[in-house]
């Protein structure tokens, strides 16, 4: 215990040295900028930073810069998700569903405030769970194999039904379409090129950024241009700053549950930010009462998505630090940098290098506080974007989207793909097809297929009898049946009413 306190203090001291603190602030500002700019992913910026970071000798400086950068990307991405319906990063895609309708109702201030306070809660809970969980989660992660991971991804795909609301058939078709889009390119298992039509461009597969920008950003921009008004449909900015804080306080149980989902998703290797917010959003829709307003401007949708995407970042570090298994793309890049400066993630991070683990925990905590303070301080000036006329916003959004699409892979063919996906998203929206299942199908499809084949290859059909598989299977069935039961109860209750 004494050594733990010593390590905690040593970690805090090292993080608060002027050098580390300055680098952390730089990381927070860069992370916030990247989070705010749609289409520029955290991983691509991290990849650019790596060559510079690897020349540093001080491991605490590397932790301060990279972990500080990684911790806050999802916080600032709420600005564009709420104000112009273009998620700044993949972790804020679900925020658009309710954040943007709230902005259109003139409640951008409330949505942003709730989003940042929820982010703060998620961002503070995450690091402490990271710390507390390390000794307990180690045996659990080691007992998980591909069959359990397959069941977890399958569980994610069944969320498609929940996200489709009252049009499950269209939702399932959109989900399958998403899985097919994810299948485009060279197949890892067999080396076969699937749906590439002998073109080099498609061999690498289709980038999720392109699909997300096309399916979500352009259709909303078209809608704004067609309406020829402002983003907000009312002239009121609203005075919802404290209302947003109260919303988070009022829905504290949802905030905690969504944070826990974020940590869990982060903890599971391979399921990235783009999944955490959807899982938390689907969970909110599934479990909350009076769900009719979800998708039309329900603050609970914003709270669930934003608390989960921030707590997820800390969850990512659990397998990264304890087992050297990165939880996501960003942590994989950070892991590379840590190894380069002499840190060996693994059991040592819980013994001889515990002070470094604490440095990560402190950096995650302090970076989140700094980022949320910056975002809260700038809510009002940036919220004024809601009152900009459409002719100021539409060209700027299109510029963001086109540059974001190009910057993802630096290919002009991506711009043609963007136009194709934009037309798909526009048509889906026009004809009442839910777009979220398409993205979720795309995120999980590839992983699901790989885990299934690994499971079958290693265990034959015996993988179905593994206890972990059966437990997750039961949870999956419950999560599928629960909303149906709730709908049935609701119909029964309405039938009784005069």
């Amino acid at each position, binding site marked *: 215990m004494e050594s733990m306190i010593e390590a905690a203090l040593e970690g805090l001291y090292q993080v608060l040295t002027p050098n580390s603190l300055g680098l952390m602030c730089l990381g927070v500002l860069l992370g916030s900028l990247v989070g705010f*700019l749609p289409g*520029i992913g955290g991983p691509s*910026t991290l990849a*650019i930073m790596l060559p510079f970071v690897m020349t540093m000798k001080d491991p605490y400086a590397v932790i301060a810069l990279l972990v500080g950068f990684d911790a806050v990307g999802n916080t600032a991405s709420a600005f564009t998700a709420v104000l112009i319906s273009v998620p700044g990063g993949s972790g804020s895609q679900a925020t658009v*569903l309710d954040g943007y309708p709230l902005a259109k109702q003139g409640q951008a201030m409330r949505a942003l405030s709730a989003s940042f306070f929820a982010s703060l809660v998620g961002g503070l809970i995450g690091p402490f769970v990271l710390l507390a969980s390390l000794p307990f989660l180690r045996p659990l992660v080691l007992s998980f194999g591909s069959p359990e991971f397959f069941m977890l991804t399958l569980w994610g795909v069944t969320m498609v039904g929940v*996200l489709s*609301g*009252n*049009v499950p*058939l269209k*939702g399932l*078709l959109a989900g*399958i379409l998403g*899985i*097919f889009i994810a*299948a485009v390119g060279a*197949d890892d*298992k*067999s080396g*076969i090129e*699937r*749906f590439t039509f002998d073109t080099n461009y498609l061999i690498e597969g289709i980038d999720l950024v392109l699909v997300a920008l096309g399916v979500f950003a*352009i259709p909303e921009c*078209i*809608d704004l241009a*067609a*309406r*020829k008004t402002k983003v907000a449909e009312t002239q009121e900015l609203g005075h919802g700053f404290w209302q947003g804080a109260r919303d988070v306080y009022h829905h504290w149980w949802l905030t905690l549950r969504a944070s826990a989902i974020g940590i869990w998703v982060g903890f599971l290797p391979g399921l990235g930010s783009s999944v955490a917010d959807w899982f938390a959003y689907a969970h909110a*829709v599934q479990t909350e009462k009076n769900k*009719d307003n*979800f*998708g*039309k401007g329900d603050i609970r949708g914003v709270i669930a998505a934003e608390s989960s995407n921030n707590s997820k970042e800390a969850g990512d570090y659990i397998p990264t630090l304890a087992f050297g298994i990165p939880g996501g793309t960003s942590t994989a890049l950070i892991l590379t940098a840590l190894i380069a400066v002499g840190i060996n993630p693994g059991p040592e991070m819980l013994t001889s290098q515990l002070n470094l683990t604490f440095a990560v925990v402190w950096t995650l905590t302090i970076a989140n506080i700094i980022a949320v303070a910056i975002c809260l301080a700038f809510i009002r000036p940036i919220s004024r974007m809601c009152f900009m*006329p*459409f*002719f*100021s916003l*539409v*060209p*700027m959004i*299109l*510029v963001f989207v*086109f*540059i974001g699409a*190009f*910057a993802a892979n*630096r290919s*002009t063919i991506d*711009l*043609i793909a963007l*136009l194709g996906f*934009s037309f798909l998203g526009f048509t889906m*929206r*026009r*004809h*009442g097809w*839910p*777009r*979220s299942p398409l993205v979720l199908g795309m995120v999980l499809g590839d992983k699901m297929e790989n885990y299934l*084949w690994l499971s079958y290859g290693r265990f034959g059909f015996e993988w179905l009898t593994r206890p972990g598989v059966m437990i997750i299977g039961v949870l999956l069935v419950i999560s599928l049946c629960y909303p149906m039961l709730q709908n049935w109860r609701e119909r029964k209750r309405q039938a009784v009413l005069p």
Partner: protein
Amino acid sequence: MNSRMKAEGLLFTLFIGVVMAAALWFSRAWPIRASIGILALGAIGVVLAIWQFVLDAKRTDAVQERSQFDLPTSETESKWGNLEIWGWIVGFYLMILTVGFPIAVPLFVLAYSKCYGASWLLGIALSAIAWGFVYGVFEKILHVPWPTPLISTLFG
């Protein structure tokens, strides 16, 4: 729901059904390891698409069936409907190909904002912001290599 929207909706459902069927068709030639998932999902997809097509065809409600988690599209105020904004989007793309990002971005922002009533001052300010963003963030900080524009290829 007017007959044009219904026809469009049916056409889109048909398109999704054709994509599912095409996926099934192409995956036949692959080894089982690469095709099993596509075959299973494609078969389910074709059945669901036919089901959805029948539902769409039978639908006679005034209101279109749509996801409760999505907002309905706004009525367009433009004479040309949504074609107008699609024209701008495709035009921007062609402009990027022709003159490159650094020129196309400020030109597009200025043209669009002026066309819809922005003052010269606002139009130029927006163009400068957009250009500053492209130049400062992408060119100077991120060193994004812009594609060679068509005009440079043609005229050296």
